[in-house]
């Protein structure tokens, strides 16, 4: 495979994964969240049902323990674009993927410039 085809194929594969992600991703808590909910009593560590109310209070409780109450409103929280459902999420992940390509490529160019 020549260089250009390889780059093109790589970016296309990343974008396909990005576009599909919101439709195929599991909404179960991830490993760290699951451990957290389990330890704070919102879920059994080896069970699958999550007590939403307990989960909410666990989040308040942990901020009380660590004292880290920093919060920040990201523009697209949890890969969502307000008003747009799954297609908004797909757009957000595609946007992020393209941004990562540009930043990585640009940074690579700047850093590797001959000195």
């Amino acid at each position: 495979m020549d260089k250009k085809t390889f780059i093109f194929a790589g970016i296309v594969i990343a974008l396909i994964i990005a576009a599909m992600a919101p439709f195929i991703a599991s909404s179960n808590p991830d490993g760290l969240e699951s451990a957290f909910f389990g330890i704070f009593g919102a879920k059994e560590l080896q069970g699958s049902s999550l007590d939403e109310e307990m989960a909410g209070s666990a989040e308040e409780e942990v901020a009380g323990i660590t004292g880290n109450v920093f919060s920040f409103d990201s523009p697209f929280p949890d890969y969502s674009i307000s008003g747009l459902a799954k297609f908004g999420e797909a757009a957000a992940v595609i946007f992020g993927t393209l941004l990562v390509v540009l930043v990585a490529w640009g940074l690579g160019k700047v850093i590797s410039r001959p000195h």
Partner: protein
Amino acid sequence: MHIPDAFIPLPQAAVYWIIALIFIALALRWARRELSEEKIPLVAILAAGIFAIQAVNIPIPWGTSGHMMGAALAAIVLGSPFAAVFILTLVLIVQGVLFGDGGLTVMGANIINMGVIGGFVGYYSYRAFYPIFKSPYAPAFIAGWLSLFIAALACAVEMALAGTFPLGLGLFSMGMYHAVIGIIEGGITASAIYLIATARPDIMANTEGVPA
């Protein structure tokens, strides 16, 4: 495994940031020395692919899910653990700042777990297992699994230091979930290396033949 802000007290989060910044500086030095015109597109593709695949949470038992981390893949393909630090840092910054995925005050800890520990465990376990199998795929699977599993245990230790999880229960639960998620990490790492090595054997050549 993206730690949110509330999970670590600010003074500890600052320490993780300082350690992370040291590795980021080393990763930038790696990039300045090693990034040729040839490798820049590969770094960009790997970064994009890793960002995208991190959005795909795959269900595992116990009502839980997990996604690939990608550090082992980046380190193996580019032949340096600092490649993983470089790529994962970029990915984590975009995730944290734009999408609220992983906290900002605790981003140093996330960079350490997923970039530094993931990258170093992935790279060196690949190199350790390569001479035994004399083929990249089994070592890539093992490297992927170990990189995720060890990063998860490190995360559990950080949670214990933070007072968020008790140490034993944290190690047990993080270990249990990530032992399974590691199968995903190992499988995708080996598959991606197969695809890259098939499409561009020249890129992989120097990695496949790494001396033990």
